[in-house]
C-alpha cells in the first residue's frame, strides 16, 4: 500500500509547499504517489516526477480541475483513495479546502496541520493557536492528513524521473464555478504571508526611522512589522503589530530590531524558523529566543546590513 500526495500548483509550477509535504509523507511510508490534478498541467507532473521520494506521478488533466474546486477534486481523490493508506496534502488554503471533504466521503477523520510524524498512525499537531501540541493517533484505515509546510524541510529535486500515469477520471459536480481571482500585488508581502519579516520596536525612536527597516526589507523581499511598544508609541499603525494582540507570524526569517522581547511580542513570532535579534541592550529578553543575536546600535548596523545584502 502506498501514500497519495496531492500536489499544489497553478497548472504551470509545482508549489514549494508540496516539497515539504512530500518530506512529511516519506516519513509515513516508502511508496509515495503524487497526484497532479489540474488543467493543461503536464509541466507540473514533469516537475513532480523529479522530486526525491516520489515513486509515481498520477496526472488528472481536465478542465474540471482547473481551479481546484473542492467539490470536484475531493471526488477524484476519494475514488483513488482505497488503494492508499495515507492521503496527504499541504495545509494551505487549497489543501484545507478539499481534504476534509475527502475525509468525510471516506468516513474517516482528518488530522490537520501536522508538524511531526511520530509513526505511520501517530502525529503531532498544534492546538490552541500553538499554545499546546497534541499527539493524535488515527484509528482509521485510511489516514487523511494535512501538513504544516514550515515544520518539514523541502524534498530535493533529482535528475531521475518517476513514471507519470495519466488518469482518465472526470468528476464535475457542477455545483460551484470559478468567477475571478485577484492576486495580491503589493510592493511588500503581507505580514502573515511573508517568508522574511523585519520588525522594529521602541528602539527605533520614531516612525521615520522605520525607513531603515524598509531599506533592508526591500533587499530581502521582506515584510515590515512592529512591536506593540512601537505601535503604542505612535511610530507606526496598528496593522503592523506582531504579537499576542497583533498578528501571529511564523516566517523563515524574523529579524527583530530594537525590540526588547516582551512575552506578548514573543507569542506572535516564536514559531519563526530563524530569529535574529539586533539590540543594544545585551540583557534584552529577545536574545533568549534568538538564533543569532547582535548586540549593536541599530542606527549603525542597519545601513551596513542594507549595503552588504
Amino acid at each position, binding site marked *: 500500500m502506498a501514500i497519495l500526495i496531492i500536489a499544489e500548483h497553478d497548472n504551470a509550477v509545482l508549489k514549494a509547499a508540496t516539497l515539504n509535504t512530500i518530506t512529511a509523507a516519506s516519513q509515513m511510508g516508502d511508496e509515495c504517489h503524487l497526484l497532479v490534478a489540474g488543467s493543461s498541467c503536464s509541466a507540473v507532473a514533469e516537475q513532480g516526477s523529479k522530486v526525491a521520494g516520489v515513486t509515481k506521478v498520477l496526472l488528472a488533466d481536465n478542465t474540471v480541475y482547473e481551479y481546484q474546486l*473542492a*467539490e470536484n477534486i475531493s471526488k477524484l481523490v476519494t475514488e483513488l483513495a482505497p488503494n492508499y493508506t495515507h492521503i496527504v496534502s499541504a495545509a494551505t488554503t487549497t489543501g484545507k479546502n478539499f481534504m476534509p471533504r475527502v475525509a468525510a466521503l471516506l468516513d474517516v*477523520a482528518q488530522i490537520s496541520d501536522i508538524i511531526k510524524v511520530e509513526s505511520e498512525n501517530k502525529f503531532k499537531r498544534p492546538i490552541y493557536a500553538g*499554545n499546546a501540541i497534541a499527539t493524535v493517533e488515527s484509528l482509521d484505515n485510511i489516514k487523511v492528513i494535512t501538513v504544516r509546510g514550515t515544520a518539514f524541510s523541502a524534498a530535493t529535486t533529482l535528475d531521475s524521473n518517476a513514471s507519470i500515469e495519466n488518469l482518465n477520471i472526470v468528476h464535475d459536480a457542477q455545483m460551484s464555478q470559478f468567477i475571478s481571482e485577484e492576486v495580491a500585488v503589493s510592493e511588500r508581502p503581507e505580514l502573515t504571508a511573508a517568508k522574511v519579516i523585519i520588525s522594529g520596536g521602541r528602539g527605533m525612536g520614531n516612525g521615520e526611522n522605520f525607513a531603515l527597516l524598509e531599506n533592508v526589507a526591500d533587499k530581502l523581499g521582506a515584510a515590515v512589522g512592529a512591536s506593540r511598544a512601537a505601535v503604542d508609541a505612535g511610530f507606526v499603525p496598528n496593522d503592523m503589530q506582531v504579537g499576542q494582540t497583533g498578528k501571529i507570524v511564523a516566517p523563515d526569517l524574523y529579524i527583530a530590531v530594537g525590540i526588547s522581547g516582551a512575552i506578548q511580542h514573543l507569542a506572535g513570532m516564536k514559531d519563526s524558523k530563524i530569529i535574529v535579534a539586533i539590540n543594544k541592550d545585551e540583557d534584552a529578553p529577545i536574545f533568549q529566543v534568538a538564533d543569532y*543575536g547582535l548586540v549593536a546600535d541599530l542606527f549603525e548596523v542597519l545601513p551596513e546590513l542594507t549595503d552588504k545584502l
Partner: protein
Amino acid sequence: MKILVTVKRVIDYNVKARVKADNSDVDLANTKMALNPFCEIAVEEAIRLKESGAATEVVVVSIGPKACQEQIRTSLALGADRGIQIETDTMPESLNAAKLLAKVVEAEQPGLIIMGKQAIDSDNNQTGQMLAALLDMPQGTFASKVELIGEKVHVTREVDGGLQTIALNMPAIVTTDLRLNEPRYASLPNIMKAKRKPLVVQTPVDLGVEMKTHTQLVKVEAPTERQAGIKVNSIEELIEKLQNEAKVI
C-alpha cells in the same frame, strides 16, 4: 430563506490555554469560555443578511454539554431567532459533529449554512467542508465577502496569495474568515430578550447518529521553548550565518 449558523463554545481568545500537569489535555477548569470568534462572524453575517431582507430566519446550532447554551443565547442576543443544542458529554470529533449537523440541516432545510472556518481550540478547520461533503453541497471556505446574486451565492475567499471568487448553487455552505465583518455587541435589552427565544435540545440518539471514534488523543504537551542561539559580532558574520548555516537568505 432560512440561514443555519453553527456556533462553538471555546476558550476565550484572550485567555492562554495551559496544558495540564499530567499532559492529558488542556486545563479549562474555571477558564473564561466564549463564542468562537469565527462563529461570531458567522452569526453576524447571517444577521446582516436577514437585516438586508435576503433571509427570513436565522437558526443557530451548537453541539456540546449544557454550558454551550450560553453561546447559543449570546447568538440569540446578537439577533438570531432560535437555537438548537445537540447535547453531548464531550466535544465530538469534527466528522461526528458534521454528521450531527447534517441531520439538523435535513430537518431544517436552510438555504444557506454559515460556519466559522475553524474553532480556536482544536484548530482543525474541517467541519464545514465535511458537512458540505456529507450533504453533497458546494462550499465557499474562508469567506471575506458573501453576496447573494440571483439563485447563487458568490463567495470571495481568502486564499494564499490573494482572493478567489466563486459562485455556488444553493443551498451552500460558507465558512468565515476574519475579515468578513466586524461583529456587533449584544445590547442589554437583546440579552434579556434572548432568554425568552426558543431553544430546543436534541441528542445524537434523537438524530440517529452513531458517534464513532476515529482518533485518540495520546497526550498534550506545552510547546518546546526556544533556546538562545549564538551572539554574532558583526553584520558580516550575521549575513554569513544566515546564508550558509541557516540558509534562509
